[in-house]
């Protein structure tokens, strides 16, 4: 038996280092995880609150809504209503994870395994993150956006910038491309170049040029993109990405306002994969930390006290209250994700007949990491549940489906965890996690650029569920601000 890595609750950097090496050894050699290089930072509780309130990112432009969130979190935290997260991890290369200084050594080990290896592997391998986010460039981009926004504040005034950001934030969820890449990336690059050029011009602006004779032209006058005028060919309607549409075609926005919309849009797109993989992401990280901590214990690297402390915290993380419990607040993504992944391991190692029937591809294969890695890489919450939610997990959670019609006075139980219901419960649950279905589907369908300049939006209802009207009106005002003219929003019923 090896000597334990640590016996005290207090941590120090030498112990962290030792522990990290041991965890890394297991993660890379036993689990064969594929990760970005890690950068692990120890932060104080105030810094943690700070990170909370700005999308969890280390750098973020300034906006009052972050201040509001901070004020709320801080009050809750000080009053003891909420505990702080143990960690925050950022999808970037190198992968940055924050450890809270108040954690005990066991918790630090848990958090390192969870964030620096679990989440890290998921970020690097899941197809959504690979396709949609740029882990290399995100920090530079955030730094740029922070600089840009504060430069705009200086130049155009805080109120102006705040107004644009408010409006952009209001339709942030409608600022992502769900099904396709942004059209014509070459044009994006053109704009990027233009932006750089403008920035360069700003930096090198020289008063002397104004003193030249009238017919001398200053170098590199901004070129107006001829595409801007060519609306009907260019815009492929309908357009689901409102921010993109407004950025490109709004008749009233100034260049810096378009750039601001673009920043918000890029952020929305960057976070979109995370919204679609909550269950998987947390499940993956939880499964990894559970496996690693147990291996550490099996090898005598952590003591009994530690493993008990770990189990206590692990079980509270994956605790799922039942629907009639006062603590119930939706399905716990940690619980569901972990349960499904642990079940995949069970199916690989000790399958029952039921499992063989449901999961012939990998039941009894023995190599659970292969099955899990395949799932982590190629699925998102919706497809993962549709594919991998086993009858056993449904029985364990005692899942049941409800059908809710707004006019009825009652909910109808549509299916429960039995032979007839498994598939139905699973399909319903999968759909529940489909961001495309749970976000309102709002599209730009037309704009009268020659006449009234009215912008036409459509909400395609899903099973007759309308938008919440009071907030809809408020958001519409924001869109009108960005569009500069009237906006009409029509709700199209599907039933």
């Amino acid at each position, binding site marked *: 038996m090896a000597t334990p890595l640590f016996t005290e609750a207090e941590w120090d950097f030498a112990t962290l280092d030792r522990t990290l090496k041991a965890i890394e050894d297991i993660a890379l050699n036993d689990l064969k995880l594929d990760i970005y290089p890690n950068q692990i*930072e120890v932060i104080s509780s105030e810094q943690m609150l700070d990170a909370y309130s700005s999308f969890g990112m280390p750098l973020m432009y300034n906006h009052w809504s972050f201040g509001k969130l901070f004020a709320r979190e801080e009050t809750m935290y*000080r009053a003891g209503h909420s505990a702080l997260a143990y960690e925050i991890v950022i999808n970037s290369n190198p992968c940055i994870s924050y450890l809270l200084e108040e954690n005990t050594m066991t918790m630090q080990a848990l958090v390192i395994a969870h964030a620096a290896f679990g989440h890290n592997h998921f970020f690097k391998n899941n197809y959504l993150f690979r396709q949609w986010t740029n882990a290399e460039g995100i920090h530079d981009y955030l730094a740029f956006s922070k600089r840009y926004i504060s430069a705009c504040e200086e130049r155009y005034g*805080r109120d102006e910038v*705040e107004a644009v950001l408010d409006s952009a934030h209001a339709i942030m969820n409608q600022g992502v491309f769900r099904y396709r890449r942004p059209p014509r990336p070459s044009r994006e690059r053109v704009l990027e170049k233009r932006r750089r050029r403008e920035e360069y011009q700003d930096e090198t602006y020289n008063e002397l040029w104004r003193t030249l004779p009238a017919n001398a032209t200053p170098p590199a006058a901004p070129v107006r993109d001829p595409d801007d005028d060519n609306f009907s060919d260019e815009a492929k309607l309908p357009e689901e990405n409102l921010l993109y549409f407004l950025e490109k075609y709004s008749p009233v926005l100034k260049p810096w306002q378009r750039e601001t919309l673009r920043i918000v849009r890029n952020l929305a797109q960057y976070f979109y994969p995370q919204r679609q993989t909550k269950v998987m992401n947390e499940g993956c990280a939880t499964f990894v930390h559970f496996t690693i901590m147990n291996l550490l214990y099996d090898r005598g690297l952590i003591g009994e006290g530690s493993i008990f402390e770990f189990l206590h915290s692990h079980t509270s993380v994956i605790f799922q209250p039942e629907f009639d419990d006062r603590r119930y607040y939706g399905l716990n993504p940690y619980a569901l994700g972990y349960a499904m992944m642990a079940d995949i391991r069970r199916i690989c190692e000790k399958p029952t007949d039921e499992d063989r029937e449901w999961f012939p591809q990998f039941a009894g294969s023995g190599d659970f990491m292969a099955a899990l890695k395949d799932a982590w890489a190629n699925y998102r919450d919706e497809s993962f549940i549709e594919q991998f939610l086993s009858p056993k997990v449904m029985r364990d959670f005692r899942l049941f*489906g409800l059908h809710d019609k707004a006019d*009825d006075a009652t909910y109808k139980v*549509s299916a429960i965890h039995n032979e007839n219901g498994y598939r139905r419960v699973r399909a319903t649950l999968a759909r529940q996690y489909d961001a495309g279905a749970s976000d309102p589907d709002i599209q730009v369908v037309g704009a009268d650029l020659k006449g009234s300049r009215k912008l036409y939006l459509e909400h395609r209802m*899903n099973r007759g569920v309308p*938008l919440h009207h009071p907030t809809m009106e408020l958001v519409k005002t924001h869109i009108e601000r960005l569009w500069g003219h009237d906006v009409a929003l029509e709700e199209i019923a599907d039933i």
Partner: protein
Amino acid sequence: MTHFIDRRLNPKGKSLGNRQRFIRRARAQIRDAVQKSLKDSAVADLAKDRKIKISAKGTREPRFRLDPKSSGEQDFVLPGNKEFTPGDEIKKPPKGEDGARGKQASDSGEGEDDFEFTMSEEEVLDIFFEDLELPNLVRTTLKETPSRTWRRAGITTSGSPTQINLLRTMRNSYGRRLALKRPSLKDVAVLEAQLEAGERIDPQTPETQEQVAALKEQLAKVNSKRKWIAFVDPIDVRFNSFTEQPIPTSQAVMFCLMDVSGSMGEREKDLAKRFYMLLHLFLKRRYKKVDVVFIRHTHDAQEVDEREFFYSRQSGGTVVSTALDKMLEIQRERYATADWNIYAAQASDGYTQSGDARRCVDMLNGEIMPLCQYYAYIEILDEREMEVFASEDSGAELWRAYRTVCELWPNFATKRISRPSDIFPVFRELFKKAEA
């Protein structure tokens, strides 16, 4: 290679900018909330962090969201089935109440709830004092002969000989001498020694004579070069430069006068104390340079420090004019009107030795008011008296006397306080920012 970074020592308050933006955003609501919260609390608690509750209205962040409650249908899955079988019907929770069921769709929505957060003392005071201003803060020193001081302003090429900057001058001189290759005294001494040695050679041959001649010529050249290139040339000379600068103005002194005699009860003293505490906070906060002088009086006045003023007790008769005397004395000694704006606030229960009120009025009219930018008189009554003296005109002796001063001087104000809750409104009224 993985490494740990200790960020704990990074500068704090990264989110301060966002917080200021938020407070600015919700300014109006926060102001109302602060006023309300201050009204109900003791002045002593003013300097504390406090919880502020504002309605979420001004800081709402609307998003599109679905409203499955109004129409349409949806399916969802819940954990923890106990007795249901397919086809069972479950009663919906009554509308308006956010039951445990069917919450999924409303997670992202924001309620109309109040929004509660903690504001620091600084922020609370900032907002409370936002639109208050010491009245008539005339920049006396600018208006009259401004006092000025000399300040260093770098180095110049011209100036009085007494201001020569030797270091700079010699540095320039040395550089110039180096650049122009001015022969040094050492060079001259070497040549002279050689010449002397050459002349001393006996017998002189034509060769040595020639050498001597060459040396003489060289020496003459060196000496003349030393003459052409001055040791210190006028272009080397640098002078220290000074400019005149006005002394920062808007310094003010606040005289706090309080009656601590027997006729002032515990309650009256407490009210007066509260008023001064507020005033004191306000002054300390609002103006960079404010002196505060505390004068308490019974039949006899003395200057005391802040602690004494607020917390110690004394008993005796009441002669208000002694405090005015003391104030004048201190003013003459320490606070010349040319450099100081003078403010005074007096708190009393309105009683004084008979005949003294007359003397006070004379002093005010004759000597004090011409010096003062502003003089506030707070009379502390009990609630019964307040009803009796409902009119501004009726009142105790001092009050009636001061009313006459009030009519003469626009910068003299009198107010009455009878309850702790009066203090804030009165304070605000007294120190309201002047219109325009």
